[in-house]
């Protein structure tokens, strides 16, 4: 039995990036640690003396639970309506901005617009929009809508680009018109994934929208500010437990919905 094969596998024509990439990442981590060494030592030692202030039992009194529930409902409303509106607007916009759009000028315009929308963080939207629409849930909904429309359209565009276009080709080969190819060849392939992305975004938005209260755009963030400013933090812990329960519940609900549509 010979040890080596007489046929040699040719090497891959693609460059190897693993080693360079790993070294650069490691260098970056070391640099960040070194750059902040004083702060790291200072802040980590700060925690030591304050266990009694931080580690306290959650407060499950009826009054607190009632308060948290009502604010949480606001946050869920903001996330739900904001994501729904965002997804509805993102669908036509992402079609315009994808390669299917056809008109190069419109495609570029839509892409630039979406890139702009996407570049601004949610908390900024919340802050700016409360200046126009005032404090409250409505501002929160508008902020989440604009924010999710940016992110969802990016995911939709990628989804359209990765779409297996053989189905569209086969519909086209029957002599169907442009709109029919879209309606029968592309939409049925895209919609389930669009729905899944939107539900995932809803789930994430519940977490993201909770910060909106900090700038006055409604929801649980208002309580975060309140509870976080008065130690001991019993109520803050209640809030965290609530978060866990609500987010897991919504996650399960979304999974069920996605499964049911498959």
């Amino acid at each position: 039995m010979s040890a080596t094969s007489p046929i040699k596998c040719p090497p891959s024509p693609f460059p190897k990036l693993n080693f360079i990439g790993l070294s650069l990442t490691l260098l970056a981590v070391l640099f960040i640690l070194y750059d902040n060494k004083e702060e790291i030592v200072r802040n980590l030692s700060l925690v030591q003396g304050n266990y009694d202030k931080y580690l306290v039992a959650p407060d499950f009194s009826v009054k607190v639970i009632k308060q948290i529930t009502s604010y949480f409902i606001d946050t869920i409303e903001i996330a739900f309506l904001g994501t729904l509106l965002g997804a509805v607007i993102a669908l036509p916009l992402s079609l315009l901005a994808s390669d299917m759009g056809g008109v190069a000028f419109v495609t570029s315009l839509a892409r630039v617009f979406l890139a702009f929308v996407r570049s601004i963080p949610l908390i900024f939207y919340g802050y700016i929009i409360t200046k126009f629409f005032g404090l409250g849930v409505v501002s929160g909904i508008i902020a989440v809508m604009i924010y999710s429309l940016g992110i969802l359209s990016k995911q939709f565009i990628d989804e359209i680009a990765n779409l297996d276009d053989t189905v569209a080709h086969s519909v086209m080969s029957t002599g169907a018109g442009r709109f029919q190819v879209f309606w029968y060849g592309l939409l049925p392939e895209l919609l389930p994934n669009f729905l899944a992305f939107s539900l995932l975004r809803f789930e994430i938005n519940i977490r993201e929208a909770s910060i909106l209260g900090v700038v006055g755009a409604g929801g649980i963030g208002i309580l975060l500010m309140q509870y976080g400013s008065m130690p001991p933090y019993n109520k803050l812990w209640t809030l965290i437990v609530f978060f866990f329960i609500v987010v897991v519940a919504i996650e399960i609900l979304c999974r069920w919905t996605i499964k049911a549509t498959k």
Partner: protein
Amino acid sequence: MSQHFEAQGISVVYDRGIKPVVGLKKISLEFDPSQITCIIGPSGSGKSTLIKALIGIVPLKTGLVHLDEDLLSSSDDSHYGHNFSHSRQQARSRVAWIAQDYCLSNNSTVLSNVCMGALYKKSLFDTLFQGFSQAIKDKAYGYLTELGLEEKVHEKVRRLSGGQKQRVAIARSYLQDSWWILGDEPFAALDEGYKKQVIQSLRNRHKEGRGQILVVHDLTLALEMSDRIIALKEGQLVFDGSPEKWTEQHWETVFGLEELS
């Protein structure tokens, strides 16, 4: 109704991947609707590419595909997917395609997939606000019954097996009422029983006057069922003639290995 179907000097180049791959090299062919034509050749020889070029879903580097007076595909198309002129759509509707990997909409039902063959008969308004007409559904059901799929009519395509999907694709090509049926290995996923049934149903369509161009992997079957054999190798035409003219010599040229080591 002349059904003149012709490809003039078509070349296809795939320029994705590490280096460009030539799919077809300057192939000119004329097809006769009274014949069943079989395309054979080794893997990667361009059989599927030829079928796709003939139905106009692959961009041509050079050449034209004509059906009657209508142009079906041309190297002048800037983007092959974007030509939806009336004559182009009409030409496409007259050539039905049975794709090798079925190319069905997995999230739609079997019935809806088959009915898509008749989309060219529907107006924009009907597409948006109405489903397929009962007449088209009845016809689709008829073909599905012929192919043994009557119990799967309302099933989603994703739940079907490979052989069932293939028969759905075949049923769609029948529903299209085309002049031509172009099949890319239409028997590949079928067991012996259904293979016989499908060959019989294809013969029925042939009797109805629909020309057929089929890529067939099984050489024996190809020689048995065809009136004309076209053999490809590395994107070039190496044999074109009746099955009687096919000899051992040709087998050697088409399928023989250059050197056995």
